[in-house]
């Protein structure tokens, strides 16, 4: 893990849109404590904006009625929360055991050399971002790549090429 303490400020206050607002209110009834909403609230923010800003964290804390430090802790602990904007297509390549054994490196190398994408970076045109992630629970169909939440199994460079071609 790397340091995730640097938050990005948008300079404008955050607010849930109507749909997330309703979802927040629906979910909060499912828990006996308001703090249980920290993870779900962060997910709602990310769904709405694609990432989580400093203002959005403060909003979540105030809305839930908890310390901003607690939301900050959760947002930096759980690595799926994006603390800065990502590419339009967020590519996660599994780097763990079974995927490593079955050639994940070729996939990463292809993205590095052909697309110029480094893990942890966003392409200049904002089209892609790449992240090497830990085991995605699809080791039997390794190597796997997850793009915008969709799993792509038994990957190889050819399949990757045609997958990338479909992305806008």
């Amino acid at each position, binding site marked *: 893990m790397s340091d995730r303490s640097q938050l990005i400020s948008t300079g404008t206050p955050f607010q849930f849109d109507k749909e997330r607002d309703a979802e927040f209110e629906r979910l909060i009834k499912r828990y006996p404590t308001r703090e*249980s909403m920290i993870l779900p609230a962060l997910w709602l923010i990310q769904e709405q904006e694609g990432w989580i800003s400093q203002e959005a964290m403060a909003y979540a804390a105030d809305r839930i009625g908890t310390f901003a430090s607690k939301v900050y802790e959760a947002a930096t*602990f759980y690595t799926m929360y994006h603390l800065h904007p990502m590419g339009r297509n967020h590519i996660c390549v599994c780097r763990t055991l079974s995927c490593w*054994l079955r050639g994940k490196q070729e996939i990463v190398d292809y993205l590095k050399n052909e697309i110029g994408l480094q893990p942890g970076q966003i392409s200049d045109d904002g089209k892609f971002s790449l992240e090497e992630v*830990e085991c995605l*629970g699809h*080791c039997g169909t390794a190597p796997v790549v997850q793009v915008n939440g969709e799993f792509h199994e038994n990957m190889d460079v050819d399949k990757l090429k045609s997958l990338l071609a479909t992305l806008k």
Partner: protein
Amino acid sequence: MQVKILSAKFDIKDANKIKVAKKHGAYSTLDKVFSMPPEDVIELVKNSGLRGRGGAGFPAGVKWSFLPKNTGKPVYLAVNSDESEPATFKDRYILVKDPHMMIEGIIICSYAIGSHDTYIYIRGEYTTQVKVLQAAIDEAYKAGYLGDKVAGRDFKLNVTVHRGAGAYVCGEETALLESIEGKKGQPRSKPPFPAVAGLYGCPTIINNVQSIASLPFIIAKGAEAYRAYGTEKSPGTHLFGISGHVEKPGMYELPLGLPLLEVIDKVAGGVWKGRKLKGVIPGGSSTPVLLPEEAKTVTLDYESMAAHKTMFGSGGIVVLDETVDIVHLVKNLIDFYHHESCGQCTPCREGLGWMLKIVKKILRGDGSMADVNLLRELCDNIEMKTVCVLSAACTMPVRSYLDKFRHEFEAYVAKNDSSAAEAK
């Protein structure tokens, strides 16, 4: 070799839909369950010998009987669907192919332990899976299997899905509870155990998805029918995941107790590309590796694994062919566990990072024998000194590689020595 107990509906199209699932028997055990006193359900599960499928293999019925009675507090059930141990990919099949089997299991367990609130903790990466699961739960509510009156009985049950967000440690049961409570997933010191003080300080049972999903069969067919599979101490079937260097990797349901090598050969098509076997990780990346000789005698059950100084774990078998660079593999493993350390307790937080830097140094060709020895010593210094066993999940396998493949580490060091000599 393969059997179809848990996976009975996996090949049926749309079995995740309640209509189809019901046609194939879903929710058919509820009449029977609700006619039994809860203690009898616990007794039946105890008799079945069902052991927790999350990795530790603790008998499910026994765990349930630890719940204190009449505390005046609600009892919670948390279903562990974090499935993040590398090489483990079984629960996901249940969530997607037969979620109603698990929901039925949740009803059975909740009735037995007197719980009215279940939280299913699902790892955040399971984005498509969570949608299928939530749809199934919504259907179950609509069909009256969840909600205020479960199957028309005077039994209330709510099921809530709670999504993780990228943290393997949340599979550890108390970290999972912390995460539901909105905190960082940092394991709690035990005692108190969750059965006494768990979620929101209330008595809580945590079971793995597969453990819960095994219940409908046990209720429907009885303890003996379940014990007809597997061994005396490891009864039943398991969804094994076979990955790595085999011809046909995948998830296979097998009774416990089968010989490991036979399974690799007959079920998974053997070592790929006609290569030789170098080693087998028997139960997820945290279990100590077996050399081919050792693998010859081991069977897929808790006792045999223990006798071979390794563990059944999550049943995630990884086959390593002769080309594997063990030092590199160890780096890959430490990298994972270090990345996933919750950062709470000193030995794990500081120690795994140190181990990672040392193994990288060796891999770079900058290492010395002292570094190899230090790596080995750190395994001992860290293990069992920590709040949870995540650190041991790293040190146990790493120790096994250092002991069984020491020559590979030495070879890296020797390269360093010779290049140092050349430089002179």
